[in-house]
C-alpha cells in the first residue's frame, strides 16, 4: 500500500485528505504541526508528501527544503492557493516537483502516486 503524508496547519484539510485518500487505497498520515510533520517525513518513507506553503513557525518551502535535504529522492508537492507566491519559487528551487492548488488536487495526487 502506497503511503501519503500531508502536512497542513488546517486540520480540516488534513482530516478530509485522510478520508478521501484512505478510500482510494492509500495509507495516509497527517500533521498540522509543520515541524512534527517534517520530522515524520524524514523518519519514515512516504511515496508522496504534500506540504502546505503558508504555515506558521515554519513555512512549506522551509519544510520541503528540510525534507529534501535529508531525502533528496523524496516526492514532495507543495499546496498553495497562489502558484505565483514567491515562496513557491523557493520550494521549487529546493527540488519540489510541482504545486497543487488549494485545498488539493486529487487528480494530480493520483497521477503522482501512480507514477
Amino acid at each position, binding site marked *: 500500500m502506497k503511503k501519503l503524508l500531508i502536512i497542513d496547519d488546517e486540520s*480540516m484539510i488534513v*482530516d*478530509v485528505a485522510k*478520508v*478521501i485518500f484512505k*478510500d*482510494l487505497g492509500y495509507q495516509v498520515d497527517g500533521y498540522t504541526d509543520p515541524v512534527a510533520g517534517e520530522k515524520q517525513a524524514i523518519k519514515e518513507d512516504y511515496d508522496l508528501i504534500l506540504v502546505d506553503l503558508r504555515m506558521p513557525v515554519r513555512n512549506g518551502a522551509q519544510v520541503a527544503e528540510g525534507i529534501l535535504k535529508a531525502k533528496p529522492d523524496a516526492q514532495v508537492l507543495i499546496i498553495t492557493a*497562489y*502558484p*505565483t507566491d514567491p515562496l*513557491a*519559487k523557493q520550494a*521549487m*528551487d529546493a527540488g519540489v*516537483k*510541482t*504545486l497543487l492548488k488549494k*485545498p*488539493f*488536487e*486529487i*487528480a*494530480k495526487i*493520483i*497521477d*503522482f502516486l*501512480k*507514477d
Partner: protein
Amino acid sequence: MSVSKDYILEDLIRNSEDLLKGLEQIDEENGFLPEPVEKEIKKDIQAEEINSIDINSNLKSDGYTELSISQDEMTATGDFFPPSEGEGFAGFEEGKPIELEAVELIIRTKGIVTGILWDSISEAIFKCNTERVPVNDVIIARGKQPKNEIPAHLEIEKNLLEDPGKADTERLRIDYREMSPFVLVKKGDVLARVVPRVPGTLGETVTGKSVPFKTEKIKIVKPGKNVILDNGYARASCNGRFIVTEEGFFVSEVLEIQGDVDYHTGNIDFPGDVIIYGMVKDGFKVKSGGSVYCQRTLDASEVICRGDLIVNHGIIGKKKGVVKVNGKIDAKFIENCYVEAGGSINVSTSILNSIIHSLGEITMGEKGIIVGGKLFAQNGVKAAQIGTRVGPKTEIHCGIDFSIQQKLEWIRDKNIELAVKLQQMDAKIKAAATEELKVKLGTVRDKLMKGIHKLNLASASLVNYLDKDEDAKVVVHRSAYPGVYIEICHISYILAREMHACSFKLDKTIGRVVVESIKG
C-alpha cells in the same frame, strides 16, 4: 317701454337671407351661375313641370311597366306605374291594373331569359296596383356573375408572417434583449402550403349571353433556397432564418446583422452562422449553431457557438464576458473575459487578465503579449511576451484537457464536502446517547462513504484522460517575466528571472519543465 319680439318679422328676415344665399356668387356680367344655384334652378323647373302634368292629366290610364337592361346586361330593372281614374270613352272610368302576363310579354320581348326574379316582379305589381303608387327601380332579373379562376399557389404560414418581435402585453416586464426580429425555423418546419387551383366558371347575362371568367391575380411566392416541396407543403430543408422577399421565400443558413447586436435585434439564437457587421453590445447574447463572425467588438457579452468565432476587433469582457466556442477563435485582443475553445485560439495583439481554455494551441501575433490571468492550452502557447515586470501574475497551463480538469475539480469539491460531512457525522455518532441513534447516524455515514468512494473511482478513471499532450510547449519569442507560472502536464515551473527567446517543455526523463533557447 318694453318692445315685444316680432316673430313674424324675424321669420321674414331669415327666409330672405336663405333666398339670398349663394346669390353673391353669381357673375352677373357673364351670366355665370354657381353650381348650387344651377341645381336649385333645375329642381324648381322639374317640380313645376311635373305639377303641370298632374294638373293637366284628367284622362284615365292603365297600369303599365317599363323595363330596362343595364349596359353590361347583368341586371334588368323595372318601373311599375299604377292605373289611374279619369275620363274614358264611357265617361269616368278606372284604368286597368298591371297584369303579370303583360310584364312577362315585355320580358320576352326584351330577350330577358336568365335570372328572372318573379317574386320581386309580383310584389312590385301587387304594390303598384293596390297602393296606386309607382314602384321604381325594381330589379326584375339578375345575371349570373362568372367565378374567377384561382391558380394553384403557395400560401405562407400565417405565424411566419407575424411580427416575431411583438411584445407579450400580458407580461409586466419585458426583457427586450429576449426579443428578436428574426423568424427562425427548423429543418422540416412547414413554411407554406400548396393551395390547389380553383377552376373558373362562366357567367351569364340576363339575355342569356355567356360572360367569360378571369384568372385571379395572386401574388405568387416562389420557394427558394433550402425549401423543399413535399406532399402539398413547402418545408425548410435546414435550420435557419426564414426570409420573405418580393420574389418568394427561402431559408438562410446565415444570419446577417447589418448593425450591432443591441435592443434593436435582441439576443441572437440562430441555428446557422451569424455575421454581425457591428458589435455585440454589453449584456447581449449570441448563440449560434454554426460560426460567428463579428466585424467589431464583443463587449461584455455572452457568445456561444458550435463553430468558430472570428472577431475582427477584440473581445472586451469587463469581467462579465463569457465566450464558449466549439471551434477555433480568431481575435485581435481579449480582455477580462472567460473563454473556452474546442480548437485553437489566435490572438494578434494581447490577452489581458482573462481565463482562457483551449483544446488546441494559443498562438499570439508577432508582437502578441499575454499579461495576467490564466491560460489553459492543451497543445501549448506561442507568444512574443508573457507577463510584465510589475504587472499582474500570469499562469500558463499546458498539456491537459481543460474539460477533464473542470470535471475533476467539480468531483474534488463535491468530495471535500462529503468528507467534511463525514467528519461531522463521526463526531455525532461518538456522542450519540442511544444505540438506536448511533445506528441511524451510522446508516447516513455509510451513504456518505459510498458517495466519496464513487467520486474517487470517477476521479481515478478521469485522470487517465487528463494528460493529452506531453509535448506541449510554451514558446516565448521575446520576453517572459519573473512570476510567470508555467505548468506542463502537472509539472510546475516558476520564472525567477527575465528570460528571452526561449521555450518551456516537459522533460519526461527527469519529470521537470526545462527551458531551451530558441535564438538563431
